[in-house]
Each structure stands twice: as C-alpha cells, then as structure tokens.
C-alpha cells in the first residue's frame, strides 16, 4: 500500500493518492494536499466544501457528486470548478481525506 506524508504524519493512500482511512486525516494536512494539487491557498469557500465532503462521507459512505455539491454547499457548480479546477468532487475528496466518490453507474 503506498503512503504519503502530510503534516509530518505518514498516511495510507491508494494508487491515485486518495486516503484509504479517512480517520488518519487532520485539518493541518489539507493545505499540504491542496498544495500538491496546485491549490496554493485554501479559502473559506474551500473549507466549506471540504467540511461538507467529510460530513457527507460520514453520513453516506461516499462523497457527493459535483451536482449534489452545487445544490447543498451554497457554492455554484461554476464556482466549484474555479475552486477545485478539473474535477471538484474528486479534488475536494482528495483534500478532505476521503476515498474517491463512487460516482454513478
């Protein structure tokens, strides 16, 4: 199992860099994970989304899709793409230390 080191702690991640165990994540790790993904500064809006990702994961066992995020976070889909370029659901999940959202079939 690959590992990564954030905030001086070693954590288990999968091949794509998603946390295997969300319990290993702490808030101090988020800025470092974000930095590695090209987001140099986490704003209040970033944090709002990150916290929502973790809450949804705890409740439902999977992070929300971009569309669901757009409806529940108070941040529009367009803004979500500005905050987390390329793929808000995936990127926010990675920074929030939860597995890659299951997505749809």
């Amino acid at each position, binding site marked *: 199992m690959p590992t990564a080191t954030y905030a001086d702690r070693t954590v288990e991640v999968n091949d794509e860099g998603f946390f295997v165990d969300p319990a290993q994540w702490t808030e101090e790790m988020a800025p470092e994970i974000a930095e590695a993904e090209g987001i140099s500064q986490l704003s209040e809006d970033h944090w709002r989304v990150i916290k929502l990702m973790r809450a949804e994961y705890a409740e439902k066992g999977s992070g929300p*899709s*971009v569309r669901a995020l757009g409806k529940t976070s108070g941040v529009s*889909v367009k803004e979500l793409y500005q905050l987390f370029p390329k793929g808000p659901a995936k990127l926010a999940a990675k920074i929030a230390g939860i597995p890659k959202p299951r997505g749809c079939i």
Partner: protein
Amino acid sequence: MTTRIVILGGGTGGTIAANRLRRLLRAKEAEIVVVDQDDRHVYQPGLLFVPFGLADPEELCRSRRAQLHDGIELLDCGIDHVELDASSVRLSDGRDLAYDILVVASGAVLVPEETDGLTGAGWGDVVHTFYSLEGAAALATALERFRGGRLVVNVVDMPIKCPVAPLEFCFLADWYFREREIRDRVELTYVTPLDGAFTKPVASRALAGLLDEKGVRLVTEFNTGTVDGAGGRLVSYDDREIPFDLAVVVPIHGGAPFVGASPGLGDELGFVPVDERTLQSKVRPNVFAIGDAAGVPTSKAGSVTHFEGEVLVENIRRRLAGEPLDASFDGHANCFIETGFGKALLIDFNYDTEPLPGHFPAGVGLPLLRESRFNHLGKLMFQWIYWHSLLPGRAIPGLGSAMPEHGKRHVEAP
C-alpha cells in the same frame, strides 16, 4: 380493513410491481392503486431507434391501463407531494390518498434547463435529444436533413437512464451515415464526463475499442457547463470547447419533482434513498422505491427495474406479514448494446461484479461483451418481452433476479 398499497407512477416499475402484487395478494387482503399523470406508456428503449427511422414513435406507445391486470385501480392524475408523517399522498387535484404501503415508481425526468444555454437558441434545431419521444422524432427529421459536418454526442452528467444508450447512438450513427454513403463527410465525436467510454473498466475498454474501430472520436472528463447552440459549441466548466454542426445531448436527469416537494423523501437530486438490498426507504419502513426513482448504485435501466420487482414484491408481502425483509437484490443489470450493422453486444453485471466476457446466462448462451447477430436479435426481442413478459410480471425463463456467475470469464482490468 383492507390494506391499501399506493404505487406512484405507472411506467415500467409501477406496472411490474402492481401486476406482481395483484397476483400475490387477494383482493380482500389489499387494494392496489396506481397513480400516473397520463395514459401513454412509452417503450423507452425503442427511442434509440427513432432518429434513424428504425422505429415509429407511435408504435412505441400503448395505454397504461391496458398493461395493468384486473383488480388494480389506475388514477389518471398528477402527484403533488407525499406526506410521510401522515402516510398520505396529495394529488394535484387536491385530493388526499392515504396508504399503508407506498411504492415510489416515478422514474427520472430530464432537466435540460439545468444546463446553461441548452434550451436556448438552437434547441430543437441544431441541438437535440433522443431521450424523449418528441425529441427523438424531431431528431429523425434533423438527421435526415444532415448532409455532413460535425456531429457531437454529449452526456452532460451522470446518472442517466440506460448509460450505454448514447454509445449505441454513436454506433448506429456510424452505420446510418454509411448506409447513406456520406460517412466520409461526417465527423463523429462522443463527449462524456466519465474518464473512459463507460464506468466499468473491462467494458469501458471494449467500448472504447469499438468507438475507435468505427471512427468515433472519444473526449473524456468533459463537464459541460454551456451548450451554445447559436455559436455551435459545447463549453466545459474548465473552458475547453468542442465545436459542432449538430449536437445530440443527453440532458441532466433528476427525480420526479414531487419527490423534491415531499419533505424527507428524496436526496438532493430527487431520487429516493433506499436500502440497496431490500429497496426499503431509509427513513420510513412502509415506503419502498423501484426503478429509476430509487437511489441505488446500479444502472437506471428497465432490466434492473425488472430484477428489482421480484425483491420488492416479496418484501412488501413480508412487511405486511410482519416478517423480516429479504435482502437479496444484488444490483443485477443486463443490457444489450446495439452496435450497428445488425449486431449487438451484451453486458451483465451487478453491485460487485463488473461486466465480463463469456456467455449468458451460462457456458452456452449469448456471447458477453462481444459483437454478435444473436445479441441484436435479443435486443429486438426485448420489445416483445417487455410488453408480454416483463410488464405482466412473469418470470422470464432462465433469467432470475440474481446475476448468474456461470459462463463468465474473470479478466484483469487495464
């Protein structure tokens, strides 16, 4: 007092559930009421063929009432919302309909308005969809007039009904333009938000191979933000652009609007969260969901709805008898994928097993994940099976609810 079972929606799932329940429960045991807003039952898998002149829209429609067995009441009325606390449904004419058991079978609706520009300039002219009867018929005319140029097929976001249908559309378009001898003048592009042609790795690889073979360009991870009909381009949220002369768009899907208007019943997209094995609502023990309305992690397809029917009806019987529920739904889906030139592919999968090569339902049978004429005949036969076996809720020989393992070859994903 007799028990009242209310079924919201008289499409594939509502009809299957009502007919199966009617056979299982005697009239004095339970009253069965189906509510639907119209009396036009559309065979939706047939929509794929309409744009190519291979099916007549009229022939895909039948009366809903005629598909329901005797002893089932059909209310031809809209649904306004459900009051879970009162176990009651408010109909759009203001009446209240109390229930002991509720089955949500209201399917998925198209919400093109959610995508910037999609219903603006060019909608119905250079921007089309084949996901509705009217849309498919209009697209037939547009294709007939199409003399060449860039044809783009775009899935805006998941989930959608029958996620293989847009790929089938590409395969058939390739066939159609070859038949018309203008294939060299048409540039075909398939644009998807997924990171491959399909969600599951082995099938995704096979389908990407087929696209390539048929000269269809594949664009992945494209999240459509705007459909600019006037400018003839799709624009993604990360500002990539794809120009088109004709766009065939599968709009965003949501649950029926009344689900959203019913406090506690649905999720943010309007689908009903249910236990993925028992189909019972996560918030109320006397509420169940079937078909596209159900928020379960499998495809939104008629075949899935059919397999769910068996488990749903058994669980309603158990709930009424005070027995523990049967947690046996495995997410089984079975889809024929039309590939053009009289051939089709077949995929079969569930929650845990992705579509694999081999044969269905056992070692001898239809070839899986491989083009064959037999599968094409299977796809054509599905329409007959739909009206005559699936909706009446009869068991289809050799096709139980659980996914068959025999005949499948497990292979390494790429």
